[in-house]
């Protein structure tokens, strides 16, 4: 053999072989990388971390002029102070270029998403996790002002990869409601897989909660094969030619709710406390079962203390309040067209308005439409019926915590049969109103959607149509109505359930598109009990 096995050569080669072997064994052990999967996850972790740094620099760069600011994003100064009265919750599905699919909404573009989050961060908003939200809503914990919760539905891949670096850069966190069938039981290209879920939890930035196991898909709900959602509908049993019984229905949805919770808890070792209704439907959209909106939330709450929905607009306040919204948490479905400023406006109007309060009519966004329409020309607020309604109901966002106050409005003109001032507005189905009708004035109490007059009086004159003042005062259980500064009627028998709530307006006329009111000023002042 023509080989040179001199000591020098053997020693050099031996040394190199040993170094490589030692590195081969030790590095995977130390870095806990034992399969190629770990390696690619590790790679993606590095990539996300790098992107995070890039965002941090970008955020600092357009947020400060100092060189130090470029190196590390500092908490921007803001008027943060005190405790939050309410918590808004945002809902997204995915971020990036993903097109809408039949079974999933489209994504908001990365550029928009970045703009939205940067704007919130700059304005001093910050995220809290789901446990904090639960404690807050239960009344067990305070959160700083300008706290919000960021949530994603469906557990799509595009709700993690484009998002996580931004969370990292802004010190934000998020909740992901996953479909366990697609993420844990199976592996799909479109949805996050087990490795990714574990990695997300590892970052400490993500709460993984439930979006059901198999209840995000459609099933036949009658003999014709009409497709309906899993939770709100009774399913058609083709083999037996009938709809399932109430008992079968309960068992089916309960089993699914339990299975997804157990599946996440077993895999991640976490405690799952939140469930997001697929398509935000907790039974209100049932096609074949009218009690679904009672049974679905009740069954859900037997497994999860909190459930999340969307699509409540016009019926309630934007943010969630302690005691009021523990079980059913409302979420703002962020519009893909919103700029950062648009989103910021939504969150800002949801914050509690302080008393005394004087409305500024530069924009009408703060007024939430239950019915009819609202607009402003900068000086007056015009509330009224639309071309298809006989009347209107609007309420002011961020006023739920108001208790004892006097709400005065100067009306420049009004049209239609009746005009009402609303107080103690809890939601679209619970409030009290001073109703001014030609020749009549009465106090209407609306509880769970049914209206009852609790006090009324006949007036000598009919309501003026131009330049008059009306007011409503609520103090404990006493409600009083005023016209041009004079107390007209009063009752001490307001229902106990209406112990707090905000303000609003209402108009009505038998003819479609007629009723309206032009409000020149709104003034609300606290009164001591």
């Amino acid at each position, binding site marked *: *053999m*023509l*080989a*040179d*096995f001199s000591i020098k*050569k053997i020693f050099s*080669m031996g040394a*190199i072989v040993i*170094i*490589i072997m030692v*590195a*081969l064994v030790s*590095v*995977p052990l130390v870095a806990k*990388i*034992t*399969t*190629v999967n*770990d*390696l690619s996850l590790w790679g993606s972790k590095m990539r996300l971390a790098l992107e995070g740094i890039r965002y941090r620099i970008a955020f600092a760069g357009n947020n400060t002029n100092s060189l130090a600011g470029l190196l590390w994003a500092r908490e921007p100064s803001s008027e943060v102070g005190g405790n939050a009265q309410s918590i808004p919750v945002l809902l997204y599905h995915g971020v990036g270029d993903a097109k809408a699919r039949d079974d999933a909404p489209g994504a908001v573009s990365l550029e928009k998403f970045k703009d939205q989050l940067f704007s919130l961060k700059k304005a001093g908003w910050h995220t809290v996790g789901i446990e904090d939200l639960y404690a807050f809503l239960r009344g067990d914990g305070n959160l700083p002002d300008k706290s919000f919760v960021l949530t994603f539905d469906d557990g799509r891949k595009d709700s993690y990869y484009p998002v996580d670096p931004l969370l990292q850069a802004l010190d934000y966190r998020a909740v992901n409601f996953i479909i366990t069938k697609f993420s844990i039981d199976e592996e799909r290209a479109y949805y996050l897989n087990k490795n990714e879920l574990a990695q997300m939890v590892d970052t400490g930035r993500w709460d993984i909660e439930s979006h059901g196991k198999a209840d995000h898909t459609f099933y036949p709900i009658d003999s014709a094969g009409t497709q309906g959602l899993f939770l709100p509908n009774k399913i058609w049993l083709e083999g037996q030619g009938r709809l399932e019984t109430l008992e079968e229905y309960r068992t089916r949805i309960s089993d699914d709710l339990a299975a997804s919770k157990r599946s996440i808890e077993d895999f991640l070792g976490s405690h799952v406390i939140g469930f997001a209704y697929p398509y935000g439907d907790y039974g209100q959209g049932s096609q074949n079962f009218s009690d679904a909106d009672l049974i679905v939330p009740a069954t859900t709450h037997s497994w999860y203390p909190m459930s999340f929905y969307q699509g409540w607009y016009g019926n309630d306040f934007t943010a969630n309040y302690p005691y009021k919204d523990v079980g059913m948490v409302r979420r703002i479905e962020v519009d893909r067209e919103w700029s950062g400023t648009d989103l910021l406006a939504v969150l800002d109007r949801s914050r509690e308005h302080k008393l005394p309060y004087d409305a500024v009519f530069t924009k009408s966004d703060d007024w939430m439409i239950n019915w009819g329409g609202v607009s402003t020309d900068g000086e007056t607020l015009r509330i009224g019926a639309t071309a298809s309604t006989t009347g209107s109901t609007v309420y002011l966002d961020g006023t739920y915590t108001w208790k004892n106050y006097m709400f005065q409005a100067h009306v420049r003109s009004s049209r239609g049969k009746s005009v009402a001032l609303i107080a103690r507005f809890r939601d679209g189905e619970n409030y009290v109103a001073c109703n001014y009708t030609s020749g009549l004035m009465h106090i209407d109490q609306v509880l769970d959607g049914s209206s009852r007059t609790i006090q009324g009086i006949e007036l000598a004159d009919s309501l003026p149509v131009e330049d008059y003042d009306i007011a409503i005062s609520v103090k404990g259980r006493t409600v009083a109505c005023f016209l041009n500064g004079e107390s007209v009627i009063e009752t001490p028998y307001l229902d106990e359930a209406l112990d707090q709530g905000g303000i609003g307006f209402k108009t009505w006329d038998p003819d479609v598109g007629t009723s309206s009111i032009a409000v020149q000023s709104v003034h609300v002042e606290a009164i001591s009990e």
Partner: protein
Amino acid sequence: MAYVREKAVWFFFFLIIYVILIIKVLTWRQIEHNIFFAGYSIIITIYIFSRFFLSYFHKSVPYNSEYEPTVTFVVPAKNEEDNIAETIRRFSLVDYPKDKIEVITINDGSTDNTLDEMLSIRNELRDSIPVTVVHWGVNRGKRDGMAEGVRRAKNEIVIFIDSDSFIEKNSVKHLVKYFSSREIGAVSGHTDVHNWDTNLLTQMQAVRYYIAFTVYKAAESIFGIVTCCPGCCSAYRREYLNEFLDEWLNQKFLGSKCTFGDDRSLTNFIIRKYQAVYSPEALAYTVVPDTFSKYVKQQQRWKKSWIRETFIASTFMWRKNIVAAFSFYSYLFLAFAAPIVFFRAVVWYPSVAHQWPITYLLGLFLMLFLHGLYYRGKVGRRSWMLAVLNFWFHTVMLMWQLPWAFFTMRDSRWGTR
């Protein structure tokens, strides 16, 4: 600074070996899924690493002035009027006793002035070394030319030099020194590319030649089974050649007479009984194809002779050293599996399963990078990235030549050059 840079090159060289190994370790379980493809990946890694490993232990024999056998240069030529005189003139300048040198040059039916050039250089050198000119009016082929040279040779060692190749002055010494051992039947010199700076193609070939000799031939040389002592510069012991000269001359494969790959074939006869080794100090320079079509034709010719001689060698290689035999049969498997693996990773999987061949391409790139760094570390030329390019080109384009050559084995039209 240069010292640091050189160290850095070798650091990266070993770092890449490490990265490749760690990928293998992490993908180890894939062997459960598909033994063929995972096996390919493991075998090619072991094969390539073992080449570098073995070549490191390649031994050089010191020159001993006591042993100075007589040598005969054999130069078959056809239409080489431009180079032939210079090739032969260099024999008279080599650093070796003149009385131990003779030259036999065969004019194989040239249609230009090759014969005149041969005769005039014979006259020019008449006081220095004896030059015999054999003239054939009709072309008989290179193999006949080489055989004629061997028959007419009177000296112990026959050195074949292509008519377009040049040798260094001391190359003869470094070729013959190995023959002091009776086991040695053939010695391959180290051939570099003469026209390496002509264009990108020749630069790439320069890198490839360098690594093919210093790594792959050196590794084979350890076991004395260099499978091809190339025609451009190799020495043979005449005594051993005579044992099978006629058999070689009349060699047939699949029923047709073999007209190319004469050098590989000759070496194959030698290593059946004796040893063939590589002499890194015996430097020679050859002119390589400078156009793409010439290059592809040459490669196709080589591939065909490679298939033929590899099949022949596979009938006796198992009797050689176990490591040598394992390497040989591994390479046989790899060469034929490569197009299949490539097709599966780069065409089949992406189109059917939409799975991008990241691991495959990464592995391929790292291997090519490894060769490039070796060239950078050893030669220091800046053009080392060309190695990556060339091996890439070789893998992606030329790997298909092998199956092509296989199916067109009997078509000898490529054989003429």
